[in-house]
């Protein structure tokens, strides 16, 4: 098992390196660059010389491989450089927004789990009854509704029914927990409902599988109460695949809320990403993608470790 985990750990680096190469090249194919965009307001009034000077200042005049080497050497030392648009250090640009996106991701995951596990277990126990169908329709509907639209409808309902709008300005949790939650609970609900769908279905199918195992029959035959069979024997064993999908979705949530943040006017990682694309802010974009992809790759690795550790039936070469 140790060699398997070591191999798995070492595989992280080529993948991350590949992500770095793809990102670096991809964003440089996008037409236009940050210098051109910054002076585009002045139209033809800017001389070519000034543009060249500006490019040289932020290192865009060097050959691409040199730029890449400089950047990747920085990344290896966890130094992502400065934003090409604002000139501020990347970590400073990302810090506050990351805190916000992370909080929404955590809250959405809690919403998703609170919905998914009871519903999934219920659907599995009542397999092929109308309850099962209702749960299935509820969760597929969650997958079908765009969370940005759900957001618009939520805000609209609050406005029409309660004549109340959630605060539009972000307040950190430690400043005013109430203000903070009043703003962030809505995106968390919209996104959490959507993400509960996959977890609900996973809970249902994992429970169905476990309920057919011999040890469940044994537990029932021993005369254990249904409640105890479910909580101690079935649920515990069905949770591993559910944990995996929840964790992977969480990793995506950190950077994948691009559209939802727009609706709720949240200044998080997703919005920053859209701005960075619009400004052709290469360094910021690279850092954001590395952050999001890195989180995904890391969570995947941790899940493999968890599997190897928690499920002794799984053997690895």
């Amino acid at each position, binding site marked *: 098992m140790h060699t398997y985990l070591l191999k798995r750990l070492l595989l992280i680096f080529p*993948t991350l390196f*590949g992500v770095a190469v793809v990102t670096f090249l991809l964003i440089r194919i996008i037409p236009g660059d940050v210098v051109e965009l910054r002076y585009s307001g002045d139209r033809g009034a800017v001389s070519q010389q000034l543009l060249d000077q500006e490019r040289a200042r932020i290192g865009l005049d060097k050959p691409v491989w040199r730029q890449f080497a400089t950047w990747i050497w920085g990344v290896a030392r966890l130094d992502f450089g400065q934003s090409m648009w604002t000139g501020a250090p990347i970590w400073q640009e990302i810090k506050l927004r990351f805190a916000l996106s992370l909080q929404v991701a955590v809250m959405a995951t809690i919403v998703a789990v609170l919905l998914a596990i009871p519903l999934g277990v219920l659907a599995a126990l009542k397999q092929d009854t109308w309850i099962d169908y209702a749960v299935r329709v509820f969760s597929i*509907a969650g997958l079908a*509704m765009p969370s940005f639209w759900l957001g*618009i409808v939520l805000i609209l309902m609050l406005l029409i029914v309660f004549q109340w709008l959630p605060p539009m300005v972000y307040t950190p949790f430690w400043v005013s927990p109430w203000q903070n939650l009043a703003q962030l609970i809505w995106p968390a609900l919209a996104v959490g409902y959507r993400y509960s769908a996959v977890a609900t279905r996973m809970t249902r199918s994992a429970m169905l599988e476990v309920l057919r195992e011999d040890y469940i029959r044994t537990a029932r035959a021993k005369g254990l109460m249904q409640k105890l069979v479910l909580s101690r024997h079935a649920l515990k064993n069905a949770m591993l695949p559910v944990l995996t999908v929840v964790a992977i979705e969480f990793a*995506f949530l950190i*950077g994948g809320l691009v559209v939802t943040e727009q*609706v709720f006017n949240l200044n998080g990682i997703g919005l920053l990403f859209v701005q960075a694309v619009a400004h052709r802010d290469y360094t910021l974009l690279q850092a954001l*993608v590395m952050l999001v*992809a890195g989180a995904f790759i890391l969570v995947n690795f941790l899940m493999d470790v968890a599997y190897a550790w928690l499920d002794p039936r799984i053997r690895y070469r």
Partner: protein
Amino acid sequence: MATPLAYDLEVVETRRRWPEALRDFGRRRPLGAIGAVVIVFMLLVAGLAPVISPYDPVAIDFGAMLARPSSAHWLGTDSFGRDVLSRLVHGSRTALLVGFGASILGAAIGAILGVGSAYFGGRVDLYVQRVMDIFLAFPLIILALALVAILGNSIPNLIMAITVPMIPRCALVIRASALSIREMAYVDAARAAGFGHARIVLRHMLPNVMAPFLIMLTAFVGQAILLESSLSFLGLGVQEPTPAWGLMLSGAAVEFAERAPWMAIFPGLAISLAVFAFNLFGDSLRDALDPRLRTQ
């Protein structure tokens, strides 16, 4: 004696006629059948869009700005006085074109990559898998967003941008099914007969991953529609004045949400219903086609 004979005949006759198979699908999987009906309805609406839409979807009428739903405008009008129903009807063309275009392309390329990767195995498999891993690490929307920025936002480019992130997801699933097919005797037989790699992959292996292929395909249509509407909502997808559901939700729809909620509600309902139908249908198709996932 008669009963076992009849039973045998039923087993032998595996090729059923279409209407019968459809009726069976409808009876055993009511949710899937509902999905299929909605999909057929959408295809009809898209096909007959110019005939059934009451107004020109791009005709601006400042006399009827933000009009409430009424007998003249069933679903109201937007901030340019354009008829919401007509824009929805025409928007279904955009949604289906991008949805089917991207998912057929993505699933096809993914299937060829997946089967090829499984067939050749060894180094080829290893490298293809690593490249897929890299692309899987990007969230769908982020990769699509970057590609749209590169390609520009015409509809063919939008399809391309949505296709690319679909490819590794399909390749992964198809490869898993193809791995077991590689070990089949008929693949060995084809190899022994001296057929080339391309022929074995395309003629012998690809048809046998049809079930997962179709499952991925239907699952992707819904996702592609959702992705298109997200990109259009951000202003990076379909451009005005082309009618598209995501686009109808952006800008004015949010601004005027309180005064004219119909502008925001109906396009979202259309997106949800479309994706819902494809997901329901895809789900039931998976249950019907994939015996390993079949419950009991």
